[in-house]
């Protein structure tokens, strides 16, 4: 028996291919997950650097597009690339990377569904982002801000076309990777695990992935129309350079932006009960709340370019008001769970709490964002004061409050992903990441978000327009000096966010690549509740020697039954 086991182990290790062949030729979900995580963190650093540059430009609101950049076109390229890179080069790859690595493990599956498709998706994504970044710097990008001759602004039509095609490639690749993940959740569950017993991270990826599959193709259809119109000698409407971004911007607006932060709740839902050493309270209610957040974040209908009045329409307003409820329910469930046990303070717990709080603040700002339309719809009193308030709240809709909502939601997703990284590091890298560095990164993210997102929220109240690349965004600003000072604070905040991402990357380099990480008890250092902790760290080829059979959503906490025998 022992001999057989040793032979099997050696066979497993012989199937692992190292070196460059292992990197470029891999379709192992663990390798792909790690690659997504590395490049996702680098993409995050790019996004935060671009955000700092954008904030520098907003330091002097009387000379937008002149101070740091050669033209308003270049400023717009930087601004739009900061958004596309935060979402497509950082948030989505980090979440998809974690899911690619962990979902099969949480389900006790030997691999991801369609590993070769997942591999294709990763490389298509990576090549796509490289092409996109190069074309943006080659005077391409997704349009220009003002309706003037594209050549007068130094814009290159061919580079623009390639920018559109490359970003389509990136989104297509991410969709393919998402389908691999959600197909795994649905079809690879072990015996005894119903969908209501799926671990919360996998469940949240199922919900989020479902919404992405519903919404991102609609965004691709916008892009396709722009691209076709852009082909002609004279674009008529959709491909005119000043209109391209306007058709695509809904993806970074509420309610859609919340769809990219849904997995934060799942990550926190997996971390907190383990830290507290007790089962998650009201598990199904948590699952329903996460599902409800998915429903409330489907925003493909909210396209201001084609429907300019959408921000005043009932569905949009109601979704903006209700989005806080599922987040609040999950927070309540987590607090209740924490109360039952004694949470051990760790880097991943602090990061998870900060991530969920950031998402909560995003939902509060969302309510503020739609409150003008909501109050306007229900008020029946002929009251000048109330009408004045409603008028002011309506004006808030076109301001950088929208940017604050986006920033809080997307940075929440980054923080949540980093929390997951610290929690699952023993499983992913075979060692723990440094606890102190993790806490420092959490503080940097928290401080950065308060300064960067907070300054945007206050600048919105001071009437700084959301389209910061247009000089018209600063017409009628209440307190220009105050706006510029807050933008200075925004620079500090963006630098802190960059520092947070850099700390995490540095920690991975030191702990993993330089072998300084703590390998003690790496198989299950936290006393995990879910199946990924039942196998080695990092897991062998095939993940589990025998397909596990489970009977609850926390099989390790209650009882693990491996292959029908009690372990």
């Amino acid at each position: 028996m022992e001999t057989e086991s040793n032979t099997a182990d050696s066979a497993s290790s012989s199937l692992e291919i190292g070196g460059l062949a292992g990197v470029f030729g891999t379709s192992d979900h663990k390798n792909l997950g790690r690659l997504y995580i590395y490049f996702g963190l680098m993409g995050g650093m790019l996004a935060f650097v671009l955000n700092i540059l954008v904030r520098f430009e907003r330091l002097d609101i009387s000379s937008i597009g002149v101070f740091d950049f050669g033209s308003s076109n270049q400023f717009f390229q930087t601004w739009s690339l900061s958004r596309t890179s935060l979402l497509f080069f950082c948030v989505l790859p980090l979440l998809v990377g974690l899911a690619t690595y962990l979902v099969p493990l949480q389900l006790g599956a030997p691999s991801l569904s369609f590993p070769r498709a997942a591999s294709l998706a990763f490389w298509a994504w990576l090549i796509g982002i490289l092409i996109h970044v190069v074309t943006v710097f080659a005077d391409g990008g997704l349009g220009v801000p003002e309706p003037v001759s594209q050549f007068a602004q130094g814009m290159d039509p061919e580079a623009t076309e390639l920018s559109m095609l490359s970003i389509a490639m990136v989104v297509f690749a991410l969709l393919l990777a998402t389908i691999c993940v959600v197909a795994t959740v649905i079809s690879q569950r072990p015996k005894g695990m119903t969908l209501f017993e799926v671990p919360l991270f996998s469940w949240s990826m199922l919900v989020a992935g479902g919404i992405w599959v519903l919404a991102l193709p609609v965004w691709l259809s916008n892009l396709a129309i722009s691209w076709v119109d852009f082909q002609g000698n004279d674009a008529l409407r959709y491909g005119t350079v000043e209109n391209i971004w306007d058709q695509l911007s809904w993806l970074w607006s509420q309610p859609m932006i919340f769809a990219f932060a849904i997995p934060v709740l799942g990550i926190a839902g997996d971390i907190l009960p383990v830290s507290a050493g007790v089962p998650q309270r009201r598990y199904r209610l948590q699952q329903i709340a996460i599902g409800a957040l998915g429903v409330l974040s489907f925003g493909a209908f909210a396209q201001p370019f084609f429907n300019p009045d959408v921000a005043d329409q009932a569905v949009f307003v109601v979704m903006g008001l209700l989005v806080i409820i599922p987040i609040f329910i999950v927070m309540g469930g987590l607090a209740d769970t924490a109360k039952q046990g004694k949470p051990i303070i760790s880097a991943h717990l602090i990061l998870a709490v900060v991530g969920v709080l950031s998402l909560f603040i995003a939902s509060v700002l969302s309510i503020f964002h739609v409150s003008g339309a909501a109050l306007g719809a229900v008020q029946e009193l002929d009251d000048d004061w109330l009408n004045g308030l409603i008028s002011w709240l309506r004006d808030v809709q076109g301001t950088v409050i929208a940017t604050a909502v986006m920033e809080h939601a997307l940075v929440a997703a980054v923080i949540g992903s980093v929390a997951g990284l610290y929690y699952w590091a023993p499983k992913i890298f075979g060692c723990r990441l440094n606890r102190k560095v993790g806490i420092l990164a959490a503080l940097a993210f928290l401080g950065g978000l308060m300064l960067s997102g907070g300054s945007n929220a206050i600048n919105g109240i001071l009437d700084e327009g959301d389209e910061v690349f247009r000089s018209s965004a600063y017409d009628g600003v209440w307190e220009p000096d105050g706006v510029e000072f807050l933008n200075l604070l925004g620079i500090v905040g963006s630098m802190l966010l960059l520092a947070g991402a850099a700390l995490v990357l540095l920690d991975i380099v030191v702990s993993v690549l330089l072998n300084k990480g703590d390998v003690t008890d790496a198989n299950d250092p936290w006393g995990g509740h879910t199946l990924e902790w039942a196998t080695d760290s990092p897991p062998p080829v095939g993940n589990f020697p025998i397909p596990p059979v489970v009977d609850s959503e926390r099989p390790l906490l209650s009882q693990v039954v491996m292959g029908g025998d009690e372990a």
Partner: protein
Amino acid sequence: MNMVTTNLPAAPPPRARSLLVATGFGVTGVLMYFGGLFGIYLRERSLVRSDGGTWIPDKAHIELTPPGMIIWTLLISVVVMQWSVYSIKRDDRQHALLAVGTTLLMGGMVLVQHGWQLSQMNLVADEGPTTAATLIYTIVGSYMAALVIGMIFIALMGFRALAGQYSSRQTDGIVAASLYWYSLVFIYFIIWIAVFIAK
């Protein structure tokens, strides 16, 4: 021989309809993509008409014969594709492959008819006065691309069936390809009605 067997890692459990599930999500994505295109097309057309304008330029010639032929070809292909599913469920690989090949032939016919229609329409994308040409080219071009993907999918599943991967015990590949194909027929039905009939 015994050593070779013990050298292998544990066999993965049978995949529980992964291909069908993934195809379901893929079909959903394709439907949403065309849903987005149709939504924009119908809205833009409605705006032009409500202003008293003409949506399709007067000089354009959108004949109904090619779209009519296409929809009939596709409807027949649904029956043929279902024939392949029926046959593979009964281990009748010969007829399953015959049906797959016929479906591919019909797909090729649809592509040819699309190409002929596009060449006859006299629609120029950047001339205006409306954006009808841009949107019609986007919708029809996207549809042709989706059709080519569908044909590759069917051909791949056909080759796998030929290699013996699919039988009455495992029909997922053929069923998944047919699911995608039916969704394409449904999408063309919308194009036929919304773009060509009610132009």
